[in-house]
């Protein structure tokens, strides 16, 4: 059963729609090997919502996430991110949209040859409107906010898994993106670190009115969601608004 829901979250101010998907279909492969992986996805996410996406492996969650991140081109249907129609967009338009999105991966993917500070700064250097002093200040503030104020110049190989993920979060959030896409951010972490990580994400997101779409298998963190979406076999099955 597909749900089309574009209601704002109950109990909060109505924000504009950040992500708007209508009739999205996606395929992999060509010719005889062509396989459909997403079926008629309809979804609207408002600014500031925290949406969790769960489902079995192979359900298409990651594919949907990559489409939402502008990392893949949309084939059929309409996919609007921050007002930009992604289907048929030029490479430059995709690039520009990506600058407004923060990514948190399961593997932190920090650059091993940069310190925590330098890794986070990399995210800010994409935007021309920051000054040098701004960059340094924002980076230090962000790292302090995630609890790594005393590890600013540490390199990834000197940090624990949880700490590395926190640097990745700082990197994703420092430029105050409108959307955060997270793919299994707690999968490689223990219970405490995982909990810390999602709480940081939640707190910072609420402070900055960031929309969050988080793909996860982790049952321990489902309570932070404003909305819980369930995917199976390429379809959005359940939408539990809490």
């Amino acid at each position, binding site marked *: 059963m597909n749900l089309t829901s574009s209601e704002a979250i109950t109990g909060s101010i109505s924000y504009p729609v950040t992500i708007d998907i209508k009739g999205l279909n996606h395929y992999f492969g060509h010719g005889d090997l062509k396989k459909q992986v997403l079926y008629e996805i309809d979804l609207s996410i408002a600014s500031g919502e925290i949406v969790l996406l769960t489902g079995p492996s192979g359900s298409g969650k990651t594919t949907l996430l990559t489409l939402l991140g502008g990392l893949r081109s949309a084939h059929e249907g309409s996919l609007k991110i921050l007002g930009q129609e992604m289907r048929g967009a030029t490479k430059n338009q995709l690039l520009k949209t990506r600058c407004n999105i923060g990514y948190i991966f399961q593997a932190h993917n920090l650059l091993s040859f940069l310190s925590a500070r*330098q890794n986070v700064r990399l995210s800010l250097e*994409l935007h021309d409107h920051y000054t040098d002093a701004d960059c340094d200040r924002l980076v230090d503030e962000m790292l302090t906010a995630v609890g790594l104020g005393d590890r600013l110049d540490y390199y990834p190989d000197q940090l624990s898994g949880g700490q590395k993920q926190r640097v990745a979060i700082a990197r994703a959030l420092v430029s105050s993106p409108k959307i955060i896409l997270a793919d299994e951010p707690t999968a490689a972490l223990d219970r405490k670190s995982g909990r810390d990580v999602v709480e940081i994400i939640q707190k910072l997101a609420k402070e900055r009115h960031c929309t969050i779409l988080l793909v996860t298998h982790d049952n321990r963190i489902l309570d932070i969601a404003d909305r819980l979406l369930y995917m199976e076999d390429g379809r959005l099955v359940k939408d539990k608004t809490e």
Partner: protein
Amino acid sequence: MPKKTPLSWLLLARQKSRLVVAIAGIAFADILMFMQLGFQSGLYDAAIKPHRSLDADLVLINPKFQTLISVKSFRRERLHQTLSVPGIDRVSALYIGTGQWRNSETRTSRAILVWGVEPGKPSFKLPDVEGQLNQISLLKTVLFDQAGRPEYGPVASWLEQAGKSVEVEMSDRLLNLSGVFTLGASFAADGNAIVSDSTFLHLFPERDASNIDVGLIQLKPGTDPLKIQAILAAELPKDVRVLTVEEFANVEKQYWAEGTGIGFIFGLGAVMGFIVGIVIVYQILYSDVSDHLSEFATMKAMGYSNLFLVRVLIGEALILAVIGFLPSLVLAMGLYQLTYSATLLPIFMKLDRAVTVFVLTMVMCSASGAIAMQKLYEADPADIF
């Protein structure tokens, strides 16, 4: 606009062992190129040192002249004909032949280049020759090049022990060795000896006095050699050729560069060094990209363009070029010194060669970077999820 983090530099600085390997590889390739080009240059320089030591502004030679070891003569009167042109101060004749120098200690003979000069007239501008020219006007007197190969015997020490002059044998004739000078061995000559023109004709009776090998022309001060060259070229018949000293040296150089396999062999050696360098740097850059593929893909996800990453890679390649070149320069100079002590061949670092190898290093590293770039395109942000 914020100051950008220097990714190219940090990629290298933070991976010390990879950096060391890369520098070693580039230095090795550079040293190969330096040695090949250095040997080639040293050999050419040695071959033309006699030409450059001639005390003349212009020279006359037989148009068929290619190299000192197979000299073609021309008529002496051509040299005297030039005196009619205003601006010419003095002329003198040079005979060149190959003699057999006998080493009295080992009882063996070896070929030696013999120069027959007119005493009292311009010949060589080597300082240690000029002072001894009056001595060779005495018949059967010879000056010996002490910078020739050691197989001729410790000639300089013979002279020292004897004090004044020593009897030596050349081409089965006894001569008086009255002094030594310094010129140097080369392709054409393992050694040199200078005698007067009369002594030369005594040593080589088959030679005709009216056929000389090189005509030396000295111009009056302030005269333009190129102007006189043009006048002479027009006036003289086609059985002689008028050249500046540099052009004369180039004729010899060209013979060895193109007439023999030397230019090709050393050129090929340098090219191989270049290719080795490309392969080594490519390996380094390729493995760098592979190892950081997901990190680069993350950067692409964040919004960095492919072009940006390409620039980082090229930056890395160029930094490597500079850091790898510097030790090779120092090591090459050391190797040149070593070569000189072993072979007596004068090889020195020259600015144009250093610049050439540096430019080749930059090209080599950029080319590797360009090929390694292909790997970068595989960094697909969609795949890291």
